[in-house]
């Protein structure tokens, strides 16, 4: 765990730095994949920028909307640099909406664009794991396995290391040469499916799971729902392809 690095009067947040680094390297993967798929690199870069800016603005506005009276009284608080006044869900939804709107207006083809984003998103997941390791967040359940790590006054599963390892596996799998996709969009759905499987598996070792009725871990249930969605989508695309080939 290495959450902060002091550089004179400045306090560098290492988890945030890991995320920024992951985003930057991920963007280069996206650029390369976009070029390989014959997409306009500039438009894909703009798409990422719209998503990022929309996500950050959306996260702050969604948080402020929850405490409207506070922010109406102190509107300057909207410009705070603190990451603790961001709503992750709001940021995710508005970031996706901003990117989707840009893609729609620029007439970017949906499925190849999603395929181009895949290696970058997969790399970002590795960076998220590293940021968890640096911050000590997403910590493991208490355990006495031989590879346990001492964290937050207990011996625990090194869940952050599991997370990084599985993210590396998913990243490697979704590289074009490992499992070639036969149709546009399939690579992206495969990535989502693998990520969902990893989440379902990993969550069992976490010590900070949100629990739903009867002790079920929310992330596992959500992972299974996402996996079902991926299977349904792939089946539907398969049927469409078969139908088209019969017609031809």
């Amino acid at each position, binding site marked *: 765990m290495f959450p902060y690095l002091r550089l004179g009067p400045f306090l560098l947040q290492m988890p945030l730095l890991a995320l920024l680094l992951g985003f930057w390297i991920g963007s280069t993967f996206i650029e390369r994949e976009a070029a390989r798929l014959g997409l306009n690199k500039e438009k894909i870069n703009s798409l990422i920028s719209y998503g990022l800016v929309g996500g950050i603005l959306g996260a702050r506005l969604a948080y402020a909307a929850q405490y409207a009276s506070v922010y109406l009284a102190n509107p*300057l608080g909207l410009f705070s640099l*603190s990451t603790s006044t961001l709503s992750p869900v709001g940021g995710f939804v508005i970031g996706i909406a901003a990117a989707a709107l840009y893609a729609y207006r620029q007439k970017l083809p949906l499925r190849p664009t999603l395929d181009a984003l895949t290696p970058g998103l997969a790399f970002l997941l590795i960076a998220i794991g590293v940021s968890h390791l640096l911050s000590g967040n997403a910590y493991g359940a208490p355990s006495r396995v031989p590879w346990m790590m001492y964290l937050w006054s207990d011996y625990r599963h090194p869940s952050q290391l599991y997370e990084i390892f599985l993210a590396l596996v998913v990243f490697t799998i979704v590289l074009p040469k490992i499992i070639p996709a036969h149709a546009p969009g399939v690579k992206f759905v495969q990535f989502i499916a693998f990520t969902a499987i990893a989440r379902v598996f990993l969550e069992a070792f976490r010590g900070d799971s949100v629990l739903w009725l009867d002790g079920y*871990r929310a992330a*596992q249930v959500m992972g299974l729902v996402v996996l079902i969605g991926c299977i349904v989508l792939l089946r539907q695309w398969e049927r469409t392809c078969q139908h088209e080939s019969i017609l031809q």
Partner: protein
Amino acid sequence: MNNSRFVAWMTWALILGMIWTVVSRVSSDQPQAQPGAVAKEGFAAPDFTLDLLGGDKVSLSDLRGKVVLVNFWTSWCPPCRLEMPAIEKTYRSYKDIGFMVIGLNLTAQDSEQAAAGFVKEVGVTFPIALDRDNAVGNLYRVTALPTSYFIDRNGVIRSVIVGGPMSEALIQSKVEELLREGE
């Protein structure tokens, strides 16, 4: 790998995932709350008892049932000085509905006179605790100043803000969130 084979693999993964989800669920006899007291979100806030500036003592455990902001500060730290008026304003606005602030001065790195002078200058009315041997600072792993811990009515740390200054909106939104939970 063709699409049909991939879907078949995914279907098997789904079945195994369902079994794994059921097997790994947290049973009702397992403790759900984090048992230890650690200075980390989601854990019980480590207890401490300290002398107050001007006499008397304060114990964190005595404030159970209230939303508490523990703010680590020193008089020589610029962001600490900048955020103190916002903390004071929030304290005055919410103190009657269950909000409490402990301004925890790291006296080992400061001096009681300087702390008292600054408190008077800003007009701070909440209790100022004196950590003369840095024991509480070490207990809370304070690596930067200011550092603030927002603690809910059950004594669980819900938010940690390292560095500053905190905006008034940030402080008020965190306090409102925790106060709403008790309604």
